[in-house]
């Protein structure tokens, strides 16, 4: 067990980070902190993917010198996934931030629960 953990420390770190991000997204009251949690979570996934795709001693999957042998490069697909994921994450973060700004403008607080309570009091 211990061996496995040591051998795959990258994955372990990724999982820990994922957990941290997830908990933050779930439990933080402050919306900005939630968004940070979201980003930590996403980054953890990318770390995991990169770790999985990396092969010791191989090059990044960019063809240089016309070398087409697969043994030269690391697995390109995880890298592609990471890139795609980053795009998604960015857009989601942007949307979240814009929502946060709206709410802050309207209610002058970043605490989502407080906003909810205030809305309930308004009764609409």
């Amino acid at each position: 067990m211990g061996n496995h953990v040591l051998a795959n420390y990258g994955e372990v770190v990724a999982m820990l980070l994922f957990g941290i991000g997830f908990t933050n997204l779930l439990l933080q009251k402050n919306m900005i902190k939630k968004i940070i949690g979201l980003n930590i979570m996403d980054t953890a996934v990318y770390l995991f993917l990169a770790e999985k795709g990396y092969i010791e001693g191989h090059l990044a999957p960019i063809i240089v010198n016309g070398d087409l042998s697969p043994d030269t490069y690391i697995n390109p697909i995880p890298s592609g996934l990471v890139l795609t994921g980053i795009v998604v994450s960015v857009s989601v973060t942007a949307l979240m931030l814009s929502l946060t700004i709206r709410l802050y403008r309207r209610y002058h607080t970043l605490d989502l629960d407080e906003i909810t309570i205030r809305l309930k009091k308004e009764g609409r």
Partner: protein
Amino acid sequence: MNAILNFPCFSILLAMFAAIISSVLKGKGARILNTCVVSIVALMSLAALIFTVRTGECYVYVMGHFPAPLGNELRFGALEAGTALFFAVIMLLSLNGGRRKIKLEIAENKEHLYYVMVNLLLSSLLALVYTNDLFTAYVFVEINTISACGLIMITEHGRCIEAAMRYMIMSLLGSGLFLIGICILYDLTGHLLMSDIHASVEAIVAAGTYSVPLLVTIALMVVGLAIKSALFPFHSWLPDAYGYSTVSSAAMLSSLVSKGYIFLLIKLIYRVIGFPIFTESRVIDVLFIFGIVGMIMGSLSAIKENDIRRMISYSSVAQIGYIYMGFGLGTLAGMAASIFHILSHAATKSLLFVSAVGLTDVSGNHKDFERLTGAAYRNKAAGVAFTVGALSMVGIPAFSGFVSKLLFAQAALDQHGKMLPALIVLAVSSVLNVIYFMKTVIRIYTPVQTGYPSIKMRENKLFVMTLLCFIALNLLLGMCSEPITEWIVQGLHVFA
């Protein structure tokens, strides 16, 4: 015939391009474009459906030039085509039914943006239905989330924004879990295409290795999708989001968005993990329990609710519980029943939302029951439609809800361990449904003297026509269920 094989891909692309074009159009243009696009998608899906039902096969469409292990694929059989058709039809009807409210509630300079979101939603839904690639699925899940969020917050109502925020948070939690699940699965199998993953998973199971990671993966992905489709304990965002957004959004969210995720889940179960492996895992029992708890709790919350829209929303929670209970039964019949219920609930719930708005319109836009008293006399079409929807929810024969209840019950009989709880919860939940839906129906048919004006049917033709279509759809599902269930079973057979 080859042209038809392109239709799924075309429809996704069409919707996406329409979204892009809409962003530069005025409100009216965007509206017309959207209507055309949805109709065309519906027609294309219909063609695909007829084609696939006739051939009874499943087709793989390769995107770009890379073949199987590397490239991206679409795959469609009867089930996918039919679902796509159904989604398009429901979307068209929901939009038409809420057209007036969209104009009223959304600022004029933002109307086109609404249609951008709708188009995006359509394209992501279609992609979820058709794709054969897990990572693509993830990307479209996120697109779906973003567009759904846009649909919720477009009215700029304070509660909508708050609801959108909550929705986003829950969704992101869900998609985060889903994503990490994909990654681990990829790590285990080395594939992203569903069919290939399936082969590897079978090999892994046959070898008896990696059983824990596999279980974790299944759990992560299922829980992720369950959160996104508002299964019971994860439903906190739902009532606000459905209750305060504009009606078309609410109808689409409840009948399409969550159903899209559920469809993806079915895909996951059948095509990625494999049905036998899935049924052997414990996850299925968890789903079953959450399903039946959701059935009861959703209805109980609905009974307490004093706001018609929120009540319908809570009813959605209960209905999603039904669907998950069907999954949880772990039989083909249960799965078929769930799929039928996806259709029937989508048709009924959007009908309810649309007609509820018709009722609140003639009650000074108030949604509490006190003010809704007698609303059915002021807006007759909405009253009738709401009654039909309610009866269907309650499970009165001749309406679609009855058939799904029948299918669920029959499916439950094959599963000994789960038979009695499933049946009894089914009955209890029907009783609860009766309580809140029939209470509402009686309320809206109780005449009182109010100052609210009534609406004549002539003044609102589009609305009435939409409701008629909804009712017809409901009766179609209820009366002619035989071909539909046959189609579902046939589709399930070629699905994997």
